[in-house]
């Protein structure tokens, strides 16, 4: 039924167009041969440009103000507040320029539409004018660049020593996070060591790995610098934390990073937005395959105390996968079990009979 209506509609439109076409050809044939190539449609077109300008600019300003809240995301990071400010400064400057130029252009179109007998002004150049509109944009742009550069340099500066280091690992089509555990240092990894269980590719000969733990949600502290270490296992992905104004690609073979300070906990954001369901999210913004659009990680921001508490509650990866103790060099196993929080009993179970060979081979 709908198809029929659509088809009929299309046919109707086509017929109308064809009629316009026939009539206009007939009229132009009927009107003597003399080619005054400018007829009444010239002024119609000129007028339409004015109408377009008014409706266009009107619509632009109306929507931009009336729907401001629906297209601006609340910001919840320190540098994000700054880049947002830059964004709106740039917006102000460029919109002023845009509106002025647009109005001048459309008004000229209307004002200087063809008039019988008028002669256009022969005006091939004016060096002062040209100089002016080279230099003025150059100065304005220089100012914008300058502020942008300063912000960029701050954002990309090295993170401070005591930043909370968290690793985010991307793969088709999921995110995982690795936290450094009590020693606050992420252990080594190597991609050849990745397997179905050891998804981080932890290099268990490095004693820093023993207390690292895994999380499927990204937990962050408020008010403390966070250094995200980002890597990808298979193809490019990109970490996008829209509310924190964070974006950085995840590149196989080339770890990247981004540092930032979150300014609002999830709770505070729920209050601010009046949405008790609010959640921060991490999205993928680099095409990575068919699940690209669904590659999401939930993000939870705690106060610093709650964050510390949450961290303390987590079990190390090794303790969840004690059979990997086998891959720990024999000499380190004891300390591994202590660091990972594995009881001696469990440890024995998973490494039985292995000690001997391992020691023997050394």
């Amino acid at each position, binding site marked *: 039924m709908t198809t029929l209506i659509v088809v009929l509609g299309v046919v109707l439109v086509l017929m109308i167009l064809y009629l316009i076409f026939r009539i206009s050809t007939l009229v132009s044939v009927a009107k003597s041969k003399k080619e005054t190539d400018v007829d009444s449609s010239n002024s119609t077109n000129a007028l339409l440009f004015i109408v377009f300008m008014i409706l266009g600019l009107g619509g632009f300003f109306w929507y931009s103000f009336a729907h401001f809240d629906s*297209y601006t995301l609340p910001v919840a990071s320190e540098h994000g507040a700054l880049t947002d400010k830059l964004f709106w400064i740039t917006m102000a400057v460029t919109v002023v320029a845009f509106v002025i130029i647009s109005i001048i252009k459309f008004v000229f179109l209307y004002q200087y539409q063809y008039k019988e007998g008028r002669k256009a002004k022969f005006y091939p150049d004016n060096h002062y004018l040209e100089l002016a509109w080279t230099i003025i944009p150059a100065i304005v742009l220089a100012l*914008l*660049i300058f502020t942008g550069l300063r912000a960029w340099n701050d954002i990309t500066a090295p993170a401070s020593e005591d930043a909370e280091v968290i690793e985010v690992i991307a793969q088709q089509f999921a995110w995982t996070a690795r936290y450094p555990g009590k020693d606050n240092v992420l252990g080594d990894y190597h991609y050849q060591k990745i397997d179905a269980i050891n998804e981080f590719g932890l290099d268990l000969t490095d004693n820093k790995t023993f207390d690292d733990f895994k999380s499927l949600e990204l937990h962050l502290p408020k008010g403390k610098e966070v250094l995200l270490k980002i890597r990808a296992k298979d193809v490019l992905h990109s970490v996008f934390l829209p509310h924190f104004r964070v974006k950085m690609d995840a590149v196989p073979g080339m770890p*990247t990073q981004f540092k930032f300070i979150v300014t609002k906990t999830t709770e505070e954001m729920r209050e601010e937005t009046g949405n008790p369901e609010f959640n921060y999210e991490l999205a993928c913004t680099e*095409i990575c395959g068919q699940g690209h659009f669904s590659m999401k990680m939930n993000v939870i921001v705690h106060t610093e105390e709650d964050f510390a508490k949450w961290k303390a509650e987590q079990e190390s990866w090794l303790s969840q996968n004690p059979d990997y103790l086998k891959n720990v060099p024999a000499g380190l196993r004891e300390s591994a079990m202590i660091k990972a929080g594995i009881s001696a009993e469990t440890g024995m179970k998973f490494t039985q009979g292995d000690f001997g060979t391992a020691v023997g081979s050394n």
Partner: protein
Amino acid sequence: MATTHIHTHTDVHHDDHEHEHHEGNFWTNYIFSQDHKVIAKQFLITGIFWALFGGTLSVIFRLQLGFPEMSLEWMRPLLGGWITPEGKIDPEFYLALVTMHGTIMVFFVLTAGLSGTFSNFLIPLQIGARDMASGFMNMLSYWFFFLSSVIMLSSFFIETGPASGGWTVYPPLSALPQAMHGSGLGMTLWLVAMALFIVSTLLGGINYITTIINMRTRGMSFTRMPLTIWAFFFTAIIGLLSFPVLFAAALLLIFDRSFGTSFFLSDIYIGGEALANVGGSPILFQHLFWFLGHPEVYIVLLPALGITSEIIATNSRKPIFGYKAMIGSMLFIAILSFIVWAHHMFVTGMNPFLGSIFMLLTLIIAVPSAVKIFNYVTTLWKGNIRFTSGMLFSIGLVSFFLTGGITGIFLGNSAIDIQLHDTYFVVAHFHLVMGSASFFGMLAGIYHWYPKMFGRMMNEKLGYVHFWITFVGVYMVFFPMHYIGIAGFPRRYYSFTNFEFASGFTDLNALVSIAAILTLSAQFIFLFNFFYSMFRGRPAPANPWNSTTLEWTTPRNPGHGNWPGEIPAVYRWPYDYSKPGAKEDFIPQTVPYSETPESNLPHENELIKLESSNGNAIVVEGDKH
């Protein structure tokens, strides 16, 4: 004068040439023709085909984005297995659509379709040459493009579907067939098609450059060339310098895909297996790609700007304002376009210091672009504007160029780009500034030079309807995308239902999709006008727009060789519109200053002496044979 001798000599040669070609058969005249005008039309028709094809792809994926609930079962006869059992587009096929849409629009429509058509058509006609420097290479250029088109098209008919890693084909996604279906045979076809495409572009470009440098008619000095020619000249040079880099990138990618090298691959664990590749860098590919990719933006845009300059001057009945500044800004843009590529890579993990350098260079390129806009607007000032269809589309271009250029200032600022990168803000930006602007330049060119191409006029009223629907439609499609982008919606997303932050705007997305369908439909008005007028249009007068340039001195349907007699000489620049004192409001380039004492400027009177000596030389030479 030495130059006179050379040029007259060329003419003689070409006169003979012309006789040979009169006896061509259907195949040599219309298919394997070496006539630049026929080749131009071949590019144009192929380009139009691709534009419709690429446009249709975009409407299909817009249906998915605008009406995620809608059943697309009715497309099953067309798309078969790409429609899921639930009646939705397969998410991977969505990406294939986006990829092919981008590739087709950028390369096949706006590079081949635009430069191929107008460089070929206008260069010999506007500089006063019989044909391109090498008609044979020119013919090859088209047929390489044709072959490339066939191969690209064929990838739609293979089981694993066309390439689907985005038009930028970043590895490792595009290098690993196990990462997605489109990275299998489809990607191979993409790479082969693009390699052939590059060959075509280079063959064409070499010809354009050589022809412009060597084959200008008497008196056509560089500073008397229309801005169209300047634009084609710069475009060809940019293409010649940047396309080989894409070729290299494609070649290395082929090696990585098929021969186990590791140029772009390192430390990859996929499909339950760690690959052996180490030491490569995906970032390297991005550098190589964008070293072409950014200049490509200007390869697409400059010809459109050149066309527009010509049409706006003609229809405002005024000289283009700041002719030299227009050339200067194009030159500046051409140079700068090579050193801003990494602004596409601010957040790829590239060294942040590089980011600041590229941000600086990027914002500098905004200056010559701004100059161009101001010059267009000033050209309108105190004009006597005729709104022909060509003029309307040119004005549309200026409008898009401004709107889209403004958002470039945001994206070029690396600090702001962190948030906007790879969101719909970018989609809005490049569709306006490069996609729609160039597309309008192309349409403007078609309307304007149609009388010269086919000897008939297009229907102006249909042109107006076409313009207004398309102009408003384009804004309705792409303007809302700015808001969607500011809200953070990532691009290349099959649906937005998985994220809370991107769950709004169903209304705006639906509006965009409806507008896209309307806009695409309006192109059929154009198609009808185009093909109908070819046979039934009003026969075109010799110089329908009262233009000054050389192409309008040819016969209504110029044959091979363009001018039946001698090639006219040129005595003045191409923008003597509404010159004070002149009888008419335009003085063709072929009119010597000696014939227009009433309108000459003081320095032009001094040129009269040179003219007569010039003229004598021609007569003498002409008498010899």
